[in-house]
């Protein structure tokens, strides 16, 4: 605290004054262009900034609402909860980190899997929660993903995974590394059954999750501007001691280098993924959504 702050009466300190001036949650700021946005408007545009089209993070339950048809969803990953097999402790106990994340998100873990319909087509969808310990993959995320694959196989459905993760969960040690093998092995069954798998890489997709089920799609989709890569940019910069190229490890960079099939604006994901699945599965095309927002009628899209 500076001397100026110390002598100022606490009521007029700017940090607290700024917060009180605006009712909470009505306005929000775009993390990329800094535009002040009316929250309801941002929600209407699927949390894509109406000014600069930057894609803001979306939690799994909201993602399901945005992506799937409106109906009751059947949860596949319910009842899975993390344990602490290593009794891991760094500056904080793993147990405490878990309960903190559970409180903050009202979720049990960083993965949600459901069965629902996409423009009438039954599908299995798995989504990761970056708010929950950086969407890191421990035993529960691994098992949750496998349950989604197994449901897709037994019901004969395509699978879509919304990926968002910093990588493996260090607090579970080698077990978290082995989840990479587990999730990848599960996908061999989906492939054997001739069922399509489409991962959608969202910001950010890195580490052990990038190097397993995120990169094993029959068709690999990315949202615009997402950071996607195995090693983090800071580690790379420190290792190679040179400046990273412009846009390095962003979706557009990956597309240019042949690492993803296509980049799709979030507001078009329903139509485009349905179209891809419909062609792969030899079914008739669907009508475009009328009531949902699309990138086409937004100036920045």
């Amino acid at each position, binding site marked *: 605290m500076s001397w100026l702050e110390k002598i100022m009466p606490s009521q007029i300190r700017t940090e607290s004054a700024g917060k009180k001036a605006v009712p909470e949650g009505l306005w929000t700021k775009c993390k990329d262009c800094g535009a002040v946005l009316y929250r309801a408007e941002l929600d209407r545009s699927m949390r894509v900034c109406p000014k600069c089209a930057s894609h803001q993070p979306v939690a799994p339950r909201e993602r399901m609402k945005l992506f799937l048809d409106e109906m009751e969803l059947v949860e596949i990953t319910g*009842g899975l909860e993390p344990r602490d*097999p290593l009794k*891991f402790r*760094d500056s904080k106990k793993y147990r405490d980190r878990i309960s903190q994340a559970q409180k903050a998100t009202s979720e049990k873990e960083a993965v949600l899997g459901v069965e629902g319909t996409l423009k009438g087509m039954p599908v299995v969808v798995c989504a990761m929660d970056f708010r929950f310990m950086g969407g890191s993959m421990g035993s529960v995320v691994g098992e949750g993903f496998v349950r989604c694959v197994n449901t897709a196989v037994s019901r004969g459905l395509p699978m879509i995974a919304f990926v968002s993760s910093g990588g493996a969960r260090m607090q579970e*040690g080698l077990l978290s590394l082995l989840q*990479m093998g587990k999730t990848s092995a*599960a996908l061999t069954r989906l492939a054997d059954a001739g069922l399509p798998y489409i991962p959608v890489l969202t910001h950010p997709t890195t580490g052990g999750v990038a*190097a*397993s089920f995120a990169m094993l799609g029959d068709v690999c989709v990315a949202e615009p501007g997402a950071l996607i890569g195995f090693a983090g940019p800071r580690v790379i910069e420190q290792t190679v001691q040179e400046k990273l190229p412009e846009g390095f490890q962003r979706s557009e960079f990956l597309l240019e280098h042949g690492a993803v099939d296509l980049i799709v604006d979030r507001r078009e994901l329903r139509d485009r993924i349905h179209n891809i699945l419909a062609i792969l599965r030899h079914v008739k095309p669907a009508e475009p959504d009328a009531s949902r927002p699309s990138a086409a009628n937004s100036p920045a899209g």
Partner: protein
Amino acid sequence: MQKKKLDYLDFEQPIAELAQKIEELRFVADGSEVDLNEEIERLEVKSRNLTEDIFAKLGSWQVVQLARHPQRPYTLDYIDALFTDFEELHGDRHYGDDPAIVGGLARLDGHSVMVIGHQKGRDTKEKVYRNFGMPRPEGYRKALRLMQLAERFNLPVITLIDTPGAYPGIGAEERNQSEAIARNLFEMARLKTPIICTVIGEGGSGGALAVGVGDHIAMLQYSVYSVISPEGCASILWKSADKAKDAAEAMKMTSASLQELGLIDEIIPEPLGGAHRDYAAVTRTLKDSLSLTLSRLSAMSSDELVAQRYDRWMRYGDYKTS
């Protein structure tokens, strides 16, 4: 193959001092009429007891140091000593040949096999050439190509794991190392031939796992296997790489801890003081272990093998269900 002069680690200093004393006595004894043999023998027993004492209670960080010992046998040392008729095969057929992963056709006890492993360098020049055993995407893709070649000709695959981890470089990302690693995990899970994986030194994260999905996972006694290096873990969770020792302990990355957690199948014992003290001894033990596993797995049909491998990988996980 093995240098005469041993490098001692910091925690081995008492052993080093004794060894020094023994050497001095030998030197004196050589040129004198006094019989020092008895004294030398006494010190040698003492040295062995001291080594046994120190090695009986190694901390995780000390095991990490042993796993990274500059004189530890590397993949090509084992290939030389264990296998016959080795033909090294190169390249991923797309971009290049990665010297950080070596592989090729060989025989083990006369049986045809494919052997693949990470390779570190011994001197500075070779270290750079081998990129310190950190593979680039070409390495994983070469490994996969060789494994699929093995599958076509019914050769079991033997992998030796010894890497600090995947190389965090610009080119490695441009050539999509995530996909290269992921593809190996996927294809190894369904490869229709036995895969035997042994961690011989450092099992570092995705770079290790990329040749680590198999039917049997063994570790040499003083090797380590972890999701991230202790230094990496410390700098993320403790915000300081100096806490690597604490991170090594917390991650339970030694063979003993991992066996206790039920994550590996076998610990292959090392000679007293570590593999680098006696190449011949560790080679014999490793060979016995590989032969035994190989004959067990070779008796199974490929369908049985793949189904069993699948079940084994599905079992990895520790979680609650309600």
